[in-house]
C-alpha cells in the first residue's frame, strides 16, 4: 500500500483542524486585500488577495483529500472483504490524487503570485515562464513530497527576504509580526521535508505552520481594529 499521509495515526484530524485555521486566515487576508483593491483600484491588492485566496483553497483541498483517510468507516472497509476494500481503496485513491494535486498546485500558484506581487515583476514573459515552471513542479510533486516542500521553501526564503527588508526599512510592530510569521512558515516547510522520514516531525511541522498563520491572524486583527 502506498503511503498517502505522513501524519501519525493519533494526529489524524488534528492536522485538518490546524489547516482549517489557515483557511480562515487566508480568506480573511484575501477579503481585506480585495476590499483595499475596491477602494484604491491598485492591482497589487487584487493580486495579493488572489494569492491568499489560493492559499486558503490549497489548504481546503488538502483537508478534503486527507479527511477521507481519517474516517472510521474506511478503516473497517479496509479490514473487510478484499473486493469491498479494493473498491473503497480505488475510490479514495482517485479523490485523494486529484485533491492532493489541486492542493499542491494551488499552494505553489499562491506563493508564485505573492512573489511576483511583492517583487513587482510585471514582465508577462517572465510570469508565463514562472507559471509553466509551477505546473512542472506541481506534476513532479505528485511523486515527491520532499520536492514540493523544498520548492515552497525557495519561494518562502525570497518572500521572507522581502518582508524582513520591509521591517528593516521601518521597524514597526506589524511589519515585525508579518516578517516573523513568514520566517516561521518557511521553517515549517523544512520540518515537512524531514517528516517524510519521521512521522512525529509532521506534527512539529503542522504546529509550527499553525503558529505562523496565527501570528498573521493576530496582525490582521491589529490592523482592522484601527
Amino acid at each position, binding site marked *: 500500500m502506498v503511503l498517502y499521509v505522513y501524519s501519525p495515526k493519533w494526529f489524524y484530524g488534528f492536522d485538518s483542524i490546524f489547516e482549517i485555521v489557515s483557511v480562515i486566515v487566508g480568506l480573511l487576508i484575501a477579503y481585506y486585500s480585495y476590499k483595499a483593491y475596491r477602494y484604491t483600484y491598485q492591482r497589487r491588492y487584487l493580486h495579493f488577495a488572489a494569492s491568499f485566496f489560493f492559499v486558503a483553497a490549497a489548504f481546503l483541498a488538502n483537508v478534503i483529500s486527507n479527511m477521507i483517510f481519517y474516517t472510521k468507516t474506511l478503516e473497517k472497509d479496509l479490514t473487510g472483504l478484499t473486493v469491498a476494500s479494493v473498491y473503497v481503496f480505488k475510490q479514495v485513491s482517485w479523490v485523494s490524487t486529484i485533491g492532493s494535486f489541486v492542493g499542491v498546485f494551488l499552494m505553489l500558484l499562491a506563493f508564485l503570485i505573492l512573489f511576483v*506581487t511583492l517583487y513587482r515583476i510585471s514582465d508577462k514573459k517572465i510570469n508565463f515562464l514562472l507559471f509553466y515552471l509551477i505546473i512542472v513542479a506541481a506534476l513532479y510533486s505528485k511523486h515527491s513530497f520532499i520536492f514540493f516542500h523544498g520548492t515552497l521553501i525557495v519561494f518562502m526564503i525570497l518572500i521572507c527576504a522581502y*518582508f524582513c527588508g520591509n521591517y528593516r526599512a521601518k521597524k514597526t510592530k506589524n511589519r515585525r509580526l508579518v516578517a516573523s510569521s513568514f520566517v516561521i512558515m518557511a521553517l515549517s516547510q523544512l520540518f515537512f521535508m524531514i517528516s517524510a522520514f519521521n512521522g512525529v516531525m509532521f506534527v512539529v511541522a503542522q504546529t509550527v505552520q499553525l503558529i505562523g498563520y496565527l501570528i498573521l491572524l493576530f496582525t490582521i486583527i491589529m490592523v482592522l481594529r484601527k
Partner: protein
Amino acid sequence: MNLRRTKIEIINDILKSIQGKGGKIKPTHLLYKSNLSHTKMKEYINELKEKDMISEELEENNKYFRITDKGLKYVSEYKKIMEFSDSFGL
C-alpha cells in the same frame, strides 16, 4: 525618507480637504489645499468622479465638488488600508 505622496495618499488628501470644508468645496480652494498643479488636480478630480467618490454641482453659478458616501467611506477606511499596506509592504 520618501517625500513624494503616493496616489492613495493624494486621493485621501483631496477627499479630506472636501470633508474638512463641510463636504463641499470650490475648485480653487481644493487646488490650494491639495497642493497639486492644476493639471494634476484635474486628472485626480476626473478619476474621483469616475469612481463616484465626488460629484460636481452648480450652485448660484459657482462650481463645487461634493464628497459622496463612497468618498466618505474611503476616508474612514484609508487609515486601515494604509496600515494593511504598510504591514505587508504593498
